[in-house]
């Protein structure tokens, strides 16, 4: 348990004309790991993530996601992962229940499975009072928690989270991370980007991208030792300021 690599990336590169957005990055992520993917704005995180989830073709290099190749099997990748972006949460003008049904359907779940999942989620997230409300009327924190659960509906092997907690209140932000811990504990691999450096500390390992390259990759503890600082925030400042 825990030894198997679920993400393997080797010299992955993406160019836009003359500009190298992602420059030969290599790393491996183990099953059940919480992997923090950090970097300054414009460092290339989003471009890298798009290649990993099978929606952008690399210029060169290799990547295996859940044992599927990013060139040959991008559609299989999509079926085996969950993705939650910072902007797109859920359909605002559908109710919570309708959103669950809709996304369950998209992921190919049967009616019975969807009903079962709806009941499970309602209990787990205490959704009893809001299940028939329009998602648009809910506070951001709620939306993010529901959207995380929806991204997990089809029991994906990996879930990609792009700044899931931006602007969320501190209590909900922590509840969100407890959900992440729980999913990881159940064997789901977590790949997450964030600008909150305290959240970087919650990760098993973190990588830090600077100008398209991964300049550091290790456990938060070892990175702090390496850069002789007390917090991940200082690690980040040291690296990104060169």
């Amino acid at each position: 348990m825990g030894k198997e690599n679920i993400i393997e990336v080797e010299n992955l590169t993406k160019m836009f004309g003359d500009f190298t957005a992602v420059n030969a990055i290599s790393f491996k992520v183990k099953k059940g790991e919480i992997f923090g993917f950090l970097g300054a704005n414009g460092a290339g995180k989003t471009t890298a993530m798009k290649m990993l989830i099978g929606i952008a073709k690399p210029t060169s290099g290799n990547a295996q996601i859940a044992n599927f190749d990013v060139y040959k099997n991008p559609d299989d990748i999509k079926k085996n992962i969950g993705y939650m972006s910072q902007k797109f949460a859920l359909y605002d003008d559908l109710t919570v229940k309708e959103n669950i049904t809709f996304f369950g359907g998209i992921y190919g779940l049967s009616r019975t499975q969807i009903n079962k999942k709806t009941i499970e989620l309602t209990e787990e997230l205490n959704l009893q009072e809001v299940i028939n409300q329009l998602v648009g009327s809910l506070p951001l924190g709620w939306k993010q928690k529901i959207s995380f659960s929806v991204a997990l509906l089809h029991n994906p092997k990996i879930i990609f989270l792009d700044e899931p907690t931006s602007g969320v209140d501190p209590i909900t932000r922590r509840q969100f991370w407890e959900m992440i811990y729980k999913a990881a504990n159940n064997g789901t691999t977590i790949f997450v980007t964030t600008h909150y450096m305290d959240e970087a500390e919650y990760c098993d390992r973190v990588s830090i991208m600077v100008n398209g390259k991964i300049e550091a990759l290790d456990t938060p503890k070892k990175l702090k030792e390496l850069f002789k600082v007390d917090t991940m925030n200082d690690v980040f400042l040291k690296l990104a300021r060169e």
Partner: protein
Amino acid sequence: MSISVKNISKSFKKVHAVNDVSFEVKEGELFGLIGPDGAGKTTIFRILTTLLFADKGTVTVAGFDVVKDYKDIRNHVGYMPGRFSLYQDLTVEENLAFFATIFGTTIEENYELIKDIYIQIEPFKKRRAGKLSGGMKQKLALSCALIHKPKVLFLDEPTTGVDPVSRKEFWEMLKRLQQKGITILVSTPYMDEASMCDRIALIQDGKILEINTPQEIVKKFPKAIYNISANNMYKLIEILKEYEHNYSVYPFGEFVHYTDKRDDFNPNELLQFLEEQQLQNIQINKTQATIEDTFMELAK
């Protein structure tokens, strides 16, 4: 007082976006509104910048009433909204010239004030604003908000979604502007930025929870806080949450922040309990409360 807000409320249909909010900002002060999305920060900014009427309450900015003297206020304040709202099709230089002209001034006249910031984007002055990176857009927006030498500067979440390095640089810029005598009201959802302000108001669900200096706010935290770590973070949180004496359990970076219900709490007792639960490498150390601890306590 540079800004004086008295008992303002604003509702949108059934939602009380701002609920009986009062605060004052002194001349030359850097004042922070700290709170998550949906706290009412933007609504307050819109009322203070004369873009929205409050249902109740009164506001003066730079000595002018937001309702009666709205035209005067518009001439004396700079406003940088949360969403980038410059002309995407105009170049950097054209945007700046446009705002200068609107306010009856020129770039040259007030160049000294924006020089520090504008110099960083000047190499791209022929580029269209829509083609700039996030950090550059932010610098242009700030330059445009300053070009008429406002007395008061309103910045609505200027650092949201911005990485820690650029955030730090932005706050350094604000500090320098403050030294030039400009009063600044800034909002942010990042609690760690609170310490950069002279005074802050913590806000949630349209209500102000507390107003004070960042130092005084953390001093008021009512409990002893402990940093706890162990070999398995997930288990540690689960176990602490089930511990009958826990008052609060919050993950905080590499530690869990723990407070106990009892006044005579003995950390060794908890250590023993955690050891019995098969956790290893357990550490329990007393620590200082942060703004975020205080916020969560007040928001409970």
